Every structure is written in C-alpha cells, then in structure tokens.
C-alpha cells in the first residue's frame, strides 16, 4: 500500500509539472499563431485609434467584411469580429474599446446571422475572457482546455497549406479557397422581433446611444438556404430601454443577387476574399454612411 501511495504522489507531481510546461508552451504557440488571439492582442494595443467604424460579430463578419476596402473608400474601419463570437462578447469588446480609447467611432456595425438567438445567449468568447481587464484566472482557464478550438485551428493549419495561407487584414480574415454553394432558397421571412427582443443587442444599442454612435445592425448574407425573401429595409428598431438602431436585411434574396454561388464562398456561409470584397462594396452602396473623403 505504501509503495502504491508513493508512486501515486510521485506521478501526480510529475503530472502537475508536465501540465504546467505543456500549458505554457501551448499558450505561447496559440498566442502567436491563432488569428483570434493575434487580433485581440492587436485591438488591445492600438495607439490612439481613429476608426470611423468598428465591425462586431462572429466569423461570418470576420470573413465577410473587408475593412481595408472600407478604409480605402474613406471609412476608416477595423473588423473586431471573432470566430464563434456571441453578442454578449461583442458588447464587452465595444465597452472595453470605449473605455480604453478616447476617440469614438461614428458607426458600429453589428453583424448578426439567421441564428441570432443562439449567439445572443452564448457565453463570453474564451480569448476575450482570458484577456479581459481584471479577469481573475482560475482552474477553468487552463489554456489547453479553454482554447480547444484554437488547438483545432492550429491542427487545420498544420494539415492544410490553403488554410495556413489565410491572413488578417485590418481584422478581416482573408481566405481565397472556393467552395460552391449548392443549397436552394427556402424563402424564409426575416424575424425583426428577434432583434428587438435580443438582450445583448439592446445593451449594445444602449451603449451606442449614450456614446452618440450610430449602431447599424446587419443580417449578414449566408448561403442560399439561409437567405430570406423579406425586404432589405432599413428597419428602424426600438428597444425596451428606448435606445434605437437601424437594421439592414442584407441576407435578403434580393440583396444577395450579386453573389456568385460558384465562386464567392469558402464554406458554410463564409465569404472568401472575392466574395467579401463584393459584399463590402455592395453594402457601402446600400447603407448611407457619411464618408469623410
């Protein structure tokens, strides 16, 4: 019994040391290679940013909105969207940005998709949570467990040269791969109520109202089967706390006519570089931004 107790204690000590080394190494690798991590660190280290527009949202916005192109067109922009981001995290990101930097953006684009309810309820993005101001680190923050998804991303990069060739530009993730959309339109209807009743969208609208920022909500285009047959809008939204926002239904079949289903997607409703540029131009022509030339 004494022998097994000794072996157990020795092994537990070994395991603790092993975990410490492995997690430290993993964190260093992830911080240097993961797109979300790099972008997050970049957004925390801006020196006096003067962005006219911030883009918030999930990977659909991260892939789909070409912030460099928007800057070229006179709207200095940064894409803060993260893979799998929740609206709650978007609210945290915006709040943090406003606390950290003095110059307010004129616009915030919050890009939602047809699964808004799911993303509105989700927790905080692990990369944001880990790097949040005054965040207490506990056992749930063991890097190898907390950043599982980032590990999967790393593996994808290790196996696929194409995936590895993706890169960040003003926060936008650019990938050139083409995956054709073979789905068919389902002719769904836009549910405006879900936006007005979304708790974290309301909180973002409230912050924007207080800071005199125009909040533009967009339902970002998806593949044919997710598109709806409602009008593009704009729809004026008013929330319970009297804050307001404007919603553009850019996932309407009418708006999405510009998309070439054979060439513009990289998979699962995510635009490739070409699709993103086309979408961004079309969006700039649809939404009346006050562009400073």
């Amino acid at each position, binding site marked *: *019994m004494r*022998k*097994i107790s000794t*072996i157990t204690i020795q*092994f537990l000590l*070994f*395991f603790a040391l*092993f*975990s410490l080394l*492995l997690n430290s190494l993993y964190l260093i690798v992830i911080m240097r290679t993961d797109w979300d991590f790099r972008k997050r660190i970049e957004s925390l280290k801006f020196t006096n940013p003067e962005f006219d527009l911030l883009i918030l949202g999930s*990977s659909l916005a991260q892939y789909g909105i070409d912030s460099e192109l928007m800057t070229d067109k006179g709207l200095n922009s940064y894409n803060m969207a993260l893979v799998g981001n929740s609206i709650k995290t978007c609210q945290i990101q915006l709040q943090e940005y406003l606390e950290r930097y003095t110059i307010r953006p004129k616009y915030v684009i919050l890009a939602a998709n047809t699964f808004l309810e799911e993303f509105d309820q989700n927790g905080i993005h692990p990369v944001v949570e880990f790097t949040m101001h005054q965040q207490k680190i506990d056992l749930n923050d*063991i890097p*190898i*467990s907390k950043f*599982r*998804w980032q*590990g*999967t991303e790393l*593996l*994808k990069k290790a*196996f*696929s040269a*194409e*995936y590895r060739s993706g890169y960040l530009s003003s926060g936008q993730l650019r*990938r050139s*791969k083409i*995956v*054709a959309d*073979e789905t068919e339109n389902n002719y769904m209807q836009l549910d405006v109520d879900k936006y007005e009743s979304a708790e974290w969208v309301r909180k973002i609208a409230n912050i924007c109202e207080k800071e005199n920022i125009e909040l533009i909500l967009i339902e970002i285009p998806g593949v044919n089967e997710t598109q709806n047959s409602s009008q593009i809008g704009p729809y004026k939204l008013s929330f319970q706390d009297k804050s307001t926002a404007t919603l553009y239904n850019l996932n309407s079949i009418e708006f999405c006519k510009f998309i070439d289903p054979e060439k513009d997607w*990289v*998979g*699962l409703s*995510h635009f490739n570089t070409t699709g993103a540029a086309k979408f961004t131009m079309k969006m700039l022509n649809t939404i009346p931004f006050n562009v400073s030339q």
Partner: protein
Amino acid sequence: MDITSLKFVIFLFIAVLIHHVLPSKYRLGYLIVLSIGFVATFRIYLPLYVILYTYVNFYLGNRINDNKGDKPFFYAGIIINLSQLILLRYASFSIDPLISLFGSGLKVSAISEFIVPIGISYYTLQGIGYLININMGWEKAETNFLRLLLYITFFPKFLSGPIERSNHFLIQIESLKGFSVENIISGFRIILMGLFKKIVIANQLAPYIINTYKDIDRAPGDTLWLLLIMQPLYLYFDFSGYTDIAIGSSKLFGINLLPNFNRPFFSKNMTIFWKRFHISLSSWFNDYVFRQLSFRLRKLGVIATLTALLITWTLFGIWHGAGWTFMFLGLLQALAITYEFFTKKWRAILFSKVPEKAGLWIGRLSTYLFFSLALTFFFAPDMRSVISFFKKLSDLSFSIPLDGISTAPFMLIIYIPILWIIELLQEDYSHLYQKFELKLLYDPKGLLLRWTLYSIILTTLIIEGFKNQQFVYANF
C-alpha cells in the same frame, strides 16, 4: 451513475481503497453492497428485482444439481429467464400487439417503466448460461447465494458486460484476492485506455453518427460514405472503451473479467471477426445456442449446421432489439459465415495466386467493408431509413464534408491512426510490439516516457471533459 463520469472515477478510487483495507472475510459483502448501490442509482426498485431474479436462478440451479437427469427444473429455469426478458424488453413488440388483436388496450410493456430493464439482456444470458452449465455438468450449483448475487450484479459489468461465464467468475470470488500493486497499476492503465477510447474518440464521433441517422433524408451522399467508413470505428471505440473501463475497474478488486475484443478489424473474414468482436456475446451464442442446436440436429448433417447457424444469428440479431433491422443484422452475419463455410476451399485456391500479404489485406478490407454495411442495420431506426441510406450513397457531389470552416473533431485524424498502428504492431509485428511494450511498461528506464504518455492521455481527457454520452451497448 455514468461510468465515464468523474463521479465514477472518484467513487471507484475510494471503493478500491476501502476494499483493500477491509479484512478479506468482509470483501464479498462489501462488493455486493457496492454493486447493489450502483444498480440502485438507476432506479431504486431495480435491486429488488435483480435480487429476486438471482434467487430464482439460485434455487433452480440447486434443484437441477440435486435432480440430475430430471429436466423440469432446467426447462422451468430457461422459460422463466426468457419470459422475464421478453416481458421487460420485448413486450411492446411482441405481447402488446398480440393483446391488441383481441381488442384490449392493456399494455404489458408498462411494467418495464416500473422495473427499468437496465442490463437485463446481459444478466439474463449470464443466468441462462449458469443453468445450462449445471445441467450439462460443466459446473456445480453455487451454494452461497451471495456469491451468485455478486456474479449477477457485479457493478463494473452490470450495465453492458462483458457477459461473464459463471464458471470463470464464481471461482475467483471464492477467496477474494488481497492487495496487489500489479493489479492496481494494470487496472488503472486499462481504465485510462478505456476512457481515452470512449471520451476522446467515440464521444467525438457520436454526434455525427447519431444526428445523421436522425435525418438520413437530408444527409448528402458524401457524408453517408464518410459515415459508412466511420461507424465501425465509432461502435468499436465506444464499446471496447466501455469494456476496458469494466475490465480495469474489476481488476482493481482482484477480479479478472473475460475479454471482449481482440483487434477485430484485423480479421481476414467474418468467421474470425466474430471471434474477436464482442467476444463474450458471440462465444455465448456459439456455446449455448449453436453447439447445442448442432448437436441436437446432428442427424441432418450439413442442414443441421445451416439451421443452427441461421437460428443462432437471428437470435443474436434479436438480442440487440426486437425489430426487422436487428433481425437483418443477424441474418446478414449468418449469410456471410455460411458463404465463408461453403467457399473455403475455393477461396483458398483463389488467394493462393496472390501474394500472402495482399490476400490478407484484401480479406481485412472486405471484412471491414461488410461490417460497415451491416452496421447500417444496427444504427438505422427502421428499414425505410436503411433503404434511404443505401439509395443516397449514389448521390455524390465529391465535395469533402470536412472543410476548413467545419467544427468536425479534427483531432481524431491523429488519435485513431495512433491506436490503429498500435493494434497493427500487436497483430502483425508482435515481436517488435513486445519489445516496445516491455521497454515502455516494465523497464524502470522507461518510467519518464511511460508517465509522459499517461500525462498526455490524462490531458486529452481533461480537454474533452468527462462528458456524458451514453454507450451504444447500454441500450441492450
């Protein structure tokens, strides 16, 4: 209590500690209390039923023993065992429809809502096997009821086997072994491997397999091809993972359970495959159904073998559940084994013309493919879904279902090949494997490598979390 939960691991740890501190005379009682407690976690009344079930078999076993040559007690035992199985597991398919023919709305299957039939398919086979053993004179009836109770309820194997043989189990608990460092280390090592197979591999595959079968009509052909290739691996890692946990847990208490898997995907035909996959079940059907039937029908010659094969494998299919899909699953196995039986010479001539290794791998691949196809009957909810599945296989767009955006469990492309290579070494390069095993597991110089390996497995378990995903074979 889910045996892949952290709760179970802690429970096991404490249970083993107490077991080895206790004087040996209390260990049998202690294991019974643990097992009954474990069974009660599923439904509080379940232990009462299992105790009653054991007592009936205990009584009948002794009567059979005392009245050699007098068959009523033996037949009564078989009828009672099968009746309670049909009543609690198959009533909704067999008894209820019969009753409804007479215009009655009585639902006999409602009994199973009260006495939840968890583990019933396993302990019933153990009960029947025990009675047959006594009747055939292969073992003496157990005179200590508590020992028989532990045989039926022993918690590591209660839920999903292995289907233990009474003459293998009871002899071990006559004097429960004391503390052994080797048993403890080896037990934990087997459990760790089982948790890895179940949590890190099978649980990652489960959502894809289960969700696709829920809605086959919407699944593209490419996904179904991927599913077809993956489903044997899913079942294997799920069930062999469970078995490893059961065997390892049992070893911690000094009890060795029968093996259930022996590198089945390296079998060169289906006859060998079923000697290596779910061994405890297939060997049970072989010993207690096929051989008994073949013997009784021996005057019929080859027809006896064929009839026995057909009945055995149909029953084997039905054991998994009462439905056409399971019956077809069994029949397909019977067809494959019959084909192999009758074409043995012809195949030997044919394969003598190809290099030995090539022939071996052709056999292995075709066995795997046949099992993959047969498993569609296992996973599909009904025959309509099976037909739909096979029809849709031709609906190919040649797109890769796992693109860069996908959230698929990419880590599996590392884990599965590693385990496959280990099994390949064990199977085809056993000398090399034994050297490697000796160095890794027993050489004091290999300690650092050994602990690093354990730490990696533990880390992957932490990453994947002790999530609850029911065992496929827990349904039987």
